[in-house]
């Protein structure tokens, strides 16, 4: 987490992620039978799946960077590694600054607690003091547009409400680096305009944004640089237009 290279906000150095799973229908009985019969053709197999393969990229400070790719390309896995939720099988990640993330819609909340309590908890996780969070309550609640339900438990929220609240928290806690996963298609037209404006303000204030989507227009609208992730590898990276062109080619082939 140190800023040994201050030019970049995010540095990703040849990340590889291999998931290991036992084959389905694994039972203790089968494992035991394999063990005692020295069966060469074992019933219990370790299945390997390479979700990311040698992924490299850097994000400059103040840049809006896009990651685009079809479903199953490894986008979410990559984000989890960036957030420190998951450990890469090999490779290194450096995050230089505070980080806020919106991973998958409307999650990351404690379902039994109220919206207001979740705002407090999320703020504390991101390293804000109670005072700072309390001073931001009004702004966050106002922005999310769910004032009437803010003291109800999150589990009673519709998915749209939860997303609006999580978006509102993520952008209003003012981190150095903001990661947004598939969130720009959130909410109704009014909320979309509002969130677009907020993200633009955020970008203009010189903060770093990482936008992840399979939606070409969102990436084109916001990002200066992007990379195309396809089946776990970086197919191309560079100017957003070129990356999106390549994405369209890939899409038409498959």
């Amino acid at each position, binding site marked *: 987490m140190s800023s040994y290279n201050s030019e970049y906000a995010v540095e990703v150095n040849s990340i590889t992620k291999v*998931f290991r799973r036992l084959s389905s229908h694994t039972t203790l009985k089968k494992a035991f039978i394999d063990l005692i019969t020295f069966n060469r053709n074992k019933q219990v197999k370790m299945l390997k799946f390479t979700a990311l393969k040698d992924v490299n990229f850097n994000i400059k400070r103040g840049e809006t960077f896009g990651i685009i790719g079809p479903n199953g390309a490894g986008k979410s896995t990559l984000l*989890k590694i960036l*957030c*420190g*939720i*998951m*450990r890469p099988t090999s490779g290194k990640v450096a995050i230089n600054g505070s*980080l*806020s*993330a919106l*991973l*998958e819609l409307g*999650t*990351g*909340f*404690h*379902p*039994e*607690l109220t919206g207001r*309590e979740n705002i*407090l*908890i*999320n703020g*504390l*996780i*991101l390293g804000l003091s*109670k005072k700072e969070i309390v001073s931001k309550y009004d702004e966050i609640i106002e922005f999310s547009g769910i004032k009437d339900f803010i003291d109800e438990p999150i589990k009673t929220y519709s998915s749209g409400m939860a997303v609006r609240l999580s978006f509102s928290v993520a952008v209003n806690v003012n981190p150095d680096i903001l990661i947004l996963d598939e969130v720009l298609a959130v909410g109704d037209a009014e909320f979309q305009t509002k969130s677009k404006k907020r993200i633009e303000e955020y970008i203009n204030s010189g903060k770093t944004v990482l936008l992840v989507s399979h939606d070409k227009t969102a990436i084109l609208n916001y990002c200066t640089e992007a990379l195309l992730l396809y089946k776990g590898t970086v197919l191309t990276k560079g100017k957003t237009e070129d990356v999106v062109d390549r994405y369209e080619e890939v899409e038409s082939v498959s």
Partner: protein
Amino acid sequence: MGKNKIFEGFRVLAKYKYLIWILSFKELKIQYRGSYLGFFWSLMNPLLLLIIYTFLYVIVFHNPVKTYTVYLFCGLLPYSWLQSSVIIGTGSIAGSSSLVSKSLLPPEIIVFSKVGAYFLNFMLSLPVLIIFILLFKVRIGFPLVYFPLLAVIEFFLTAGITLFLSALNVFYRDIQFIIMNLMTFLFFSLPIMYFDNNLPPKIRHIIYLDPIAYLMKCFQDIFYFNMFPRPFYVLGVLLISLLFYIIGYSYFASRKELFSEFV
């Protein structure tokens, strides 16, 4: 580097103390939401045990100790804190898949908040203990100054055990079921429902191989026997609990980035 890692567990506690505090309160609130009697339920379990054991000890076995109920209560309450935290905490990481895999919450906070919630439970049941102490005219006094230290010791001991088990339970779900049974066994191995001086010396030595037995003894010293616990015991248990905490936290920290794949 190695030194840094040893103290990491303490740094996390210091950094997130307010968050842990809040989540512990919320945890308690969630437990009793929608029930009419609320917190009363967490007193029910020790009170019922109290009735059963008092019946056994005083009426069936004709034990002459009049204040047995108070003695029992002194050990039962701190033991309940440990037992509930360990049982509930062990399954807590495996049971919070959305928080573990989709939020930036450090997973150890989930475990701390369980231990914290049962600590609050423990604190809230202390007034009932005091009522029993007054009813049975048991003398208490200055040894009570040891209470905060004993609570700190129990916190680190419980947190260390729970962190270790909760991480292990992510990969081997049998742990939570094994633990549930082991905790019953542990209870009867501790001098809580019986007096240690009724035991044959050989068995007494075996029982005091367990650091938890010393901790329970210290609680009984201050609440029941009105005497200062032996400093040697307190220091010993303190060091052991810190060691448990460091080991438990280190194991947890070494595994936590794998949790999201397995929960």
